[in-house]
């Protein structure tokens, strides 16, 4: 998957959280939130990262920009390894990679005006101030569909969708190359979701942005992404172009997810595959395939050995981690 067009290449990223107990804070174990993930995103593309709650999607996002320290692996952004970058390098990287958060109610400082919220990255990174700053912020606000008159307003005066627009403006103010969207629409009403998604699409065209789009809503991802990676228990179980994945899901977990997408057309409604069992504890993960306990196709080998992500069965660029898929 190594490619000169890649803007971001993540290889074998691992983020473990130590569990400390007792008076001496001894480490008694690890939660393997992200356990060996590799993917890459080409310039101008959108990679969707889907999976259920707690599977490590957000930790991947935060590890990439070092809000959470990664345990091992490499994150290459334009020939620079983010994980080993020094302070100066990291400061520059933080201009090029920005984040959009899930909850527009907690991601904006309630005591700052919209102008200050959107303008702060410029102040911190480029030392802009005064009318130059105000002008830039006003221009960007109208770009994301807010009136520049709102520059002196506070976040609590806006609705959820408007607040998310403010969050988008803040993420774009430094003219980043990569935008990590951490479930940007899952906290919004369905009617507002499409507005924000369309806005993100338009901005991608205007600014030539690359997105890492994290979601748990497969319908949203189908509409929005070029490549989709499905995560389960801190690992990628399936990775393919969006069309290919939706037409031809190979991993049993992906199939269960697909069958759960609500469809309007009765003819498209397939047989709903029920999901059995529970997600195993992240504290004490099984030695074999993490999905084995819930898998309808489970065999002896699944319980003993961890499958690796590899290209399968004549499908081009379709990667699956499953013993049962040929």
């Amino acid at each position: 998957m190594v490619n000169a067009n890649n803007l971001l290449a993540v290889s074998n990223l691992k983020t473990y959280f130590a569990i400390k107990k007792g008076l001496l804070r001894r480490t008694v174990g690890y939660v393997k939130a992200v356990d060996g993930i590799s993917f890459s995103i080409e310039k101008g593309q959108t990679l969707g990262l889907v999976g259920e709650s707690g599977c490590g999607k957000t930790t991947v996002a935060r590890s990439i920009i070092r809000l959470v320290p990664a345990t091992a692996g490499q994150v290459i952004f334009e020939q620079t390894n983010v994980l080993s970058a020094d302070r100066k390098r990291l400061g520059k990287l933080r201009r090029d990679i920005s984040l959009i958060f899930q909850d527009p109610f907690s991601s904006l400082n309630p005591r700052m005006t919209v102008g200050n919220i959107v303008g702060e990255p410029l102040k911190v990174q480029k030392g802009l101030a005064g009318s130059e700053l105000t002008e830039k912020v006003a221009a960007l606000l109208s770009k994301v569909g807010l009136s520049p008159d709102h520059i002196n307003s506070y976040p609590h005066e806006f609705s959820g969708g408007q607040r998310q627009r403010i969050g988008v403006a803040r993420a774009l103010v430094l003219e980043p190359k990569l935008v990590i969207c951490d479930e940007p629409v899952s906290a919004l009403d369905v009617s507002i979701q499409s507005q924000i998604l369309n806005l993100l699409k338009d901005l991608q065209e205007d600014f030539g942005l690359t997105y890492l789009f994290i979601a748990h809503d497969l319908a949203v991802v189908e509409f929005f992404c070029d490549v989709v990676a499905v995560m389960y228990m801190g690992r990628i179980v399936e990775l393919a172009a969006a069309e290919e994945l939706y037409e031809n899901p190979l991993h049993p977990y992906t199939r269960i997810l697909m069958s759960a997408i609500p469809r309007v057309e009765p003819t498209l409604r397939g047989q709903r595959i029920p999901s059995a069992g529970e997600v195993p504890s992240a504290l004490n993960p099984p030695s074999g395939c993490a999905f084995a306990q819930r898998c309808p196709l489970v065999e002896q080998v699944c319980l003993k050995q961890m499958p690796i992500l590899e290209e399968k069965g004549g499908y081009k660029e379709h990667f699956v981690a499953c013993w049962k898929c040929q």
Partner: protein
Amino acid sequence: MNEQDVKHNKELPKGRSLWGDGLRRLRKHKLAMVSLGIIAVYLLLTGFIYIAELFDCQFELIKWDAKVGSEYEPPGAENVFGTDFLGRSVLRKTLYGAKVSITVAFWASVISLVIGVPLGAIAGYFRGVIDEIIVWLYTTLSSIPYILLILAFALVLKGKTINLEWAGLGTIELAGITTVYLAIGLTSWVGICRLIRGEVVKHKERDYILAAKSYGCSNSRIIFKHLIPNVFHLVIISFSLRFVSFIQAEVILSFLGLGEKNRPSWGAMIDAARLDLPKGYWWEMTAATAAIFFISLALNIFGDALRDALDPKLRVQ
């Protein structure tokens, strides 16, 4: 900001900040506004005495040590609150006592905030070893009974001098009220420190702090621009509620003979009147107690209203 920018900003509609909202709520609270008026009277009186002393003005009202009548004169037309055992006006002594009490409470609050707020914010933000040291420090301090601790501090500090010649400020002699407010301030930062630490721990996990980190804000910028403005209403609320307990602490210290000796304070007045009361000379005790009563009540009502206005989530309906 340059001129053009200011003009540009003025044309735009102003937003309603959370502070503005709080003030609007506060203004609707009638009792709080009355309390604020009472507090303002005490503060203005203190300010007036300071200015009068600074310019050596000869106002009758601030000459508390002048003999205005015979000993133990009961309240009457000439001396509204009567006179004490030296024939001095109790009214003038009571008014002058406000200066001592307000000064002590003000500086004690400032000292405890200057120590407590940054320590709490640092402990809550950095956690880890720093947090444990600070928590250990304040739990140890708070395990000692409050009055005993203040007494110990006051006794140790009494008569000492602080050498500030290296800063070009000369030496400060710790006498009278300086000892009192240092002792109170140095022992009472625990509550505000604990409060701020807890609140910072809560806020630092919010997404807006992560966002600030993600575009490269420094730790000090996050603490001072993002965290402290979001917990500062608690500082103001606790300032107004603590002011009362500092006034009371001053009274207790003066009563126990550790406070101001040469000038009247409410505690010293109560101490002096204690022995006069059985003899039927009730007015000095009454005047000092009433002075304490009104400011305490006003500060408590105002502090509660302030909490309701600035922290609406805490309000119990």
